[in-house]
C-alpha cells in the first residue's frame, strides 16, 4: 500500500512539474513541439552531441556519487563545489609541473585531484567534528574560499605571461589532455572514471562493512555507536571519500573539458548534483538516469538558445521546477508516513 501511495504521489509531482514547465515555455513563447524535439535532438541528434552530453554527464555523475556518500552518512555536504575546485587545482598543479608521458601525467592528475578534493572535504569534516562548525555553513564558506584560491592562482602565480585575467591559465601541455575518440570531444577515460567512481560508491555503500557502518551512522549515530562504530571517524571518512570523488570531477573538468584551469571550473555541477541527489533520493542507481536527464537539459538549453532564440536559463528553470515539485510532494508524503509512525510509538515532543 505504501509503494502504491508513493507511486501515486510521484506521478502527481511529475504532472505538476510538467504543467508548470509547459506554462513557462508558453510564457516565453517557446514553440512546444520544436522545444521538445530539440530536447532530444540537442542532446542526441549527432554523435558529436551525444559525446557532448556525456561530457556534461561525467561531472554530474562524479559530484552526485560524492554526495551519495556524504548524504549516506547523514551529512549535507554543500561544500562539494569547493571540493571539485580543489581537485581541479591539484590536477592543474600536476599538469603544470609534471613532465612525462600522458599515462604518467594523467595518473598523477587523477591521484592528485582525488587527494586535493579529499583534503578539502576533510577540512569541512574537521570543522564539523572538532570545530563545531555545521557542515552546511562550513561547506558554503569553503566553496567561496576555494573560488578565492583559484582566482588567486589564475591571476597571480599561475597567470599567463604579462596577463592578469581571471579568464584562466595557459592551456596544459598535450600530455595532460584526456585522450578523446576521433572527432568527439568526450573522453572515454573520463566516462570510465565517472562510472567506476559511481559503481564503487554503490558497491561501497551496499556491499561493504564500511558502507553499512557509514549508513548506520547516518541514520542513527547513537545506535551506530552502540554497535561499536566510532562514528566521528566514519563522518571524517565520508568527507574524505566524498571530497575525493568530487575532486575527480575537478580533474575531468580541467583535463578533459577546459584543458586549463578557469575560476568557474566546477561549472556549478556540484550544486546541480545536490538537486540530482535529492531527486534520486540519495540512491546511486537513480543518479545515472537523472544525471543524464540533467545533462540532456543542459545540452538542450544550448540548442534552444541557438536555434529557437530561447533564454539560456530556461533549462535551469525546468530543472528547478522538477526538483522542487518532487521534493515538496514526496516530502509531504514521507512526513505523513512519519507522523503516523510517531503516533504509533507515542513519541511526542517535550
Amino acid at each position, binding site marked *: 500500500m505504501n509503494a502504491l501511495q508513493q507511486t501515486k504521489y510521484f506521478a502527481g509531482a511529475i504532472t505538476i512539474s510538467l504543467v508548470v514547465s509547459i506554462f513557462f515555455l508558453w510564457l516565453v513563447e517557446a514553440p512546444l513541439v520544436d522545444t521538445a524535439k530539440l530536447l532530444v535532438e540537442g542532446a542526441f541528434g549527432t554523435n558529436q552531441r551525444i559525446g557532448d552530453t556525456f561530457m556534461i554527464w561525467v561531472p554530474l555523475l562524479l559530484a552526485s556519487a560524492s554526495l551519495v556518500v556524504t548524504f549516506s552518512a547523514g551529512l549535507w555536504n554543500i561544500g562539494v563545489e569547493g571540493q571539485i575546485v580543489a581537485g581541479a587545482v591539484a590536477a592543474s598543479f600536476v599538469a603544470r609541473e609534471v613532465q612525462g608521458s600522458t599515462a604518467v601525467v594523467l595518473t598523477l592528475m587523477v591521484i592528485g585531484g582525488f587527494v586535493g578534493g579529499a583534503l578539502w572535504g576533510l577540512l569541512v569534516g574537521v570543522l564539523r567534528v572538532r570545530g563545531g562548525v555545521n557542515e552546511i555553513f562550513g561547506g558554503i564558506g569553503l566553496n567561496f574560499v576555494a573560488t578565492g584560491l583559484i582566482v588567486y592562482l589564475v591571476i597571480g602565480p599561475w597567470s599567463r605571461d604579462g596577463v592578469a585575467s581571471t579568464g584562466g591559465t595557459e592551456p596544459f601541455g598535450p600530455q595532460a589532455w584526456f585522450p578523446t575518440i576521433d572527432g568527439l570531444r568526450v573522453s572515454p577515460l573520463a566516462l570510465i572514471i565517472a562510472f567506476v567512481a559511481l559503481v564503487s560508491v554503490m558497491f561501497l555503500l551496499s556491499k561493504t562493512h564500511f558502507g553499512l557502518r557509514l549508513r548506520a551512522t547516518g541514520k542513527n549515530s547513537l545506535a551506530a555507536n552502540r554497535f561499536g562504530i566510532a562514528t566521528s571517524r566514519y563522518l571524517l571518512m565520508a568527507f574524505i571519500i566524498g571530497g575525493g570523488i568530487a575532486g575527480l570531477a575537478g580533474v575531468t573538468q580541467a583535463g578533459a573539458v577546459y584543458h586549463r584551469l578557469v575560476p568557474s571550473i566546477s561549472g556549478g555541477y556540484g550544486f546541480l548534483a545536490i538537486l540530482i541527489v535529492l531527486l534520486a533520493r540519495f540512491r546511486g542507481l537513480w543518479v545515472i538516469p537523472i544525471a543524464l536527464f540533467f545533462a540532456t537539459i543542459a545540452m538542450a538549453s544550448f540548442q534552444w538558445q541557438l536555434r529557437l532564440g530561447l533564454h539560456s536559463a530556461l533549462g535551469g528553470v525546468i530543472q528547478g521546477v522538477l526538483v522542487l515539485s518532487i521534493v515538496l510532494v514526496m516530502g*509531504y508524503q514521507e512526513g505523513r508516513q512519519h507522523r503516523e509512525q510517531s503516533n504509533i510509538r507515542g513519541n511526542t515532543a517535550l
Partner: protein
Amino acid sequence: MNAATFAIIVASATPLIFAAIGETITEKAGVVNLSLDGSMLLSAMTGFAIAYTTGSVELGLLAGMATSGVVAFVVAFGGIRLRVNQIAVGLILTYFATKLSALLGGEFVRKPGPSVQKMSLPVLEDIPFFGEILFQQNPLVYFSFLLIIVSFWWIFHTRRGLDLQAIGERPEAAFARGIPVNSLRYFYTVLGGAFVGLGGAAFSLDAKMGWSEGHIANYGWIALALVIFGGWHPLRVAFGCYLFGAIQIVALKMQPTLPDLAQVLPIAPFPLMILTLVFLNMRVVQSFTMRFGGIGRLIRGTAPSALGESFWPD
C-alpha cells in the same frame, strides 16, 4: 580613507543589511531560509521590472519585498506544513529563483531605469564628518539604520521579541507556554523574506542600478555568512555588513601593491565566518563569554538552538 569613502561603505552595505537582518529575524524564529541568493536575485529583478514599468521606485521596492516574501513562504510552507527538510527546500529555491530571474528578467537587462534619489537630512547632514557618512544618503539607507535599531529593539527589548526568540530556542517549551509556534514562524519567515527582498530591490534600484543576470553578486550567500558572523545579533550582523563593505574598499586600495590578494579579498566574509565560529566554539572562549550578560551574548552569538528543526506539536 576620507568621509566620502566611509559614505560609500555605508551605502554599499545597505542591501546587505536588509538581507542579513531579514535572515536574522527568520533564523531567530528557528527557520533557516537558505534561498537568499536566489530570492534576492528574483527580487532585484521584479523590483527593477516593476519600477521600470510603472516608473515608481516605491512600487518596485514593494514588489521586491513581496517576491522574496513569497519565496520565504514556500520555505516555511515546505518546512512547517509539508515537513520537508528546510535545507533542501532552500537550496532548490536558490537554484530555481536564480534561473527564473535570468529567464524572466531577460527583457530588462541593463536598461536605464528609475532609482532611489539622494535625500540629505537637513541639519544632520551638517554634522562634521559623520554628516557626510550617515546623512547625505538616500531614504533606503536611512531605513536600513532604522531596521537595525528596530530589529535590535524588537528582538531583545519587547515582549513579542521574547516570544520570537523563544520559538527559535525551544519551540516545544514555547508551545507549552501557549505561544503559537508555527503561526509565528510563518510570520517571521515571511517578514524576514520581505526584508531579504528589499535587499534585492535595493540592489537594482540603488546600490547597483539596473538589472543584469547574477546582479546581486553573491550577496545572498554573503548575507547568510554574515548572519552567522554576526551571531544572530542585529547589531553585530550590521557591523559585519559594514566590515564587508570596508574590506572591499581595502581590496581596491591594495591593488597597486598586492594585486593578486586584492582580487581575492571579496570572499573574506566566508573565512571570517568560519574562524569566528571555531573561535567561539572553543571551550575557553565559551566559558569566558558566559560570565557576561548582554555583552557576553553579543560576543558569544550562539545560534537559536532549534534552528532548522521543524516543530510538530502532535
